């Protein structure tokens, strides 16, 4: 971003080389992150609301224990961390729909920024906010008295965070599905239903049998099981792993296909 030494009337021509990495730039990413952190709505739904949920639904269960003696509050906290992360990553990915509706995507096509670099920026932003969401939820839990071994904090946190990649892809999928300015108002309730089936608000085991069967096929189920596995010590079922991988593929491939359709020149 250095200035050339003279204007066009002078001797030097502007530097006409292509940008490195298709225009992907840490500077742009920084502005993107600042933008996300300024969005009150996003912050309310990803950082504040899950924390408040924990205080309302988790804390009253203080003193109760799981089968292995670990606190129920930790179970609730980890579940809500998964929820916070999935809402965070979905909202960043889904913002693509808003930017397409506003015409920003079209504006970007007048710059050297490659579409893949744009998506990379969105993914990194999504995962950054996802990480922040997990950390904030865990902080709320820790301050409120949740105590589990260090490896549980670490592994459950990592699983919640990495699992939310599925929802970053889901957000991009929705984002490229249809341009809409208020996309999160539409998919917010969808996420809540998926979280319910994924056992994030109540354990899947308390649902009626039929719903339990259905739940194992829904996209949050796998990441919920994986994130809680370090806590419950139940081990990781094949069904949960397959669930996570399949949904990651479905949303990832779906987003990629819609992305290609969107960037094709007609």
């Amino acid at each position: 971003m250095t200035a050339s030494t003279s204007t066009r009337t002078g001797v030097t021509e502007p530097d006409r080389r292509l940008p490195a990495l298709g225009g992907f730039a840490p500077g742009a990413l920084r502005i993107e992150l600042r933008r996300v952190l300024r969005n009150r709505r996003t912050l309310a739904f990803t950082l504040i609301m899950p924390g408040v949920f924990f205080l309302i639904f988790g804390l009253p269960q203080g003193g109760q224990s799981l089968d292995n003696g670990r606190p129920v509050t930790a179970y609730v906290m980890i579940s809500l961390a998964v929820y916070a992360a999935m809402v965070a990553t979905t909202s960043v990915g889904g913002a693509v729909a808003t930017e397409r509706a506003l015409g920003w995507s079209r504006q970007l096509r007048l710059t050297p920024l490659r579409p893949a670099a744009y998506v990379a920026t969105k993914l990194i932003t999504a995962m950054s906010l996802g990480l922040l969401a997990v950390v904030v939820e865990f902080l709320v839990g820790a301050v409120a008295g949740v105590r589990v071994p260090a490896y549980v904090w670490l592994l459950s946190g990592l699983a919640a965070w990495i699992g939310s990649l599925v929802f970053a892809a889901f957000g991009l999928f929705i984002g490229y599905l249809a341009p809409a300015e208020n996309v999160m108002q539409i998919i917010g309730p969808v996420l809540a239903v998926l979280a319910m089936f994924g056992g994030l608000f109540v354990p899947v085991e308390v649902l009626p049998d039929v719903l339990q069967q259905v739940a194992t096929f829904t996209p949050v189920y796998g990441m919920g099981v994986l994130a809680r596995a370090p806590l419950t010590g139940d081990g990781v079922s094949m069904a949960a792993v397959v669930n996570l991988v399949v949904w990651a593929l479905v949303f990832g491939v779906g987003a990629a296909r819609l992305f290609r359709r969107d960037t094709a020149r007609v």
Partner: protein
Amino acid sequence: MTSTHPAVELDGLTKSFGAVTAVDGLSLRVQPGEVVAFLGPNGAGKTTTIDMLLGLSRPDTGTVRVLGGTPDDAVARGRVAAVLQTGGLLKDLTVGETVEMTAHFYRHTRPAAEVLERAGITDIAARVVGRCSGGQQQRLRFALALLPDPDLMVLDEPTTGMDVEGRRDFWQALRRDARRGRTVIFATHYLDEADAYADRIVLVRQGRIVADGTTAEIKNLAAGRTVRATLPGADQAALAALPGVDAVEVRGDSVLVRTGDSDAIARHLLTRTAARDVEITSRNLEDAFLALTTAQTGA
């Protein structure tokens, strides 16, 4: 300019949307340094042509060369920049952040402060885009287009939706920047904008170029008068051969002669032919524009 290529070479462009032919065999060559107005009514195919020129859409047939290369390459190297009607902005960024972010996408740009100043929006750099007027947002798009110091600047109806003051401010900003070999192509349906700013006017109608010349030449199309008369079996070729006649049209029993010397033509018609009902009307640029862009027969 190091390039010896034309700034723009459009050759036999066609583009259809379903049954509608938006651009119909359009060819155009623009030399470096020219300021060209693309003038035509709504739906004339201006935007479709500009989209193809920028590589935003592909022509059905024909070729596009921008500064000797493909449009995509010219965009990626910052050699062409554009202000489009449809280019959106992020409402939650400030004006300054929008410029800063866009600058990151290029290998090299002019300083942000410089383009803000040249677009006349330095004073609102800290304002959130969503709180800017349409005219201010348009000048922000202009500032973004200035970032790469492009060789070719393309503007599609840049003042649409602005009030009189906004239009004036925008053209002032563009004029301040008018300099040093930058090629400018702008689409407009405002005749006065083409007249005031371009040194070449390309008139388009129904996807075709119906007139192309310097602003003075286009104005000359309108300088004369039209003599209309009823004259069954008019000898079109003989009338066209008369001195001062620009064009002759025969519509049924009527004949229309466009000329710089209406007295001589009227005299000729009344004394040397069986013409009757002679009418003489003067034409202005607006009439020429309307005639060229809406009538079934062009210049």
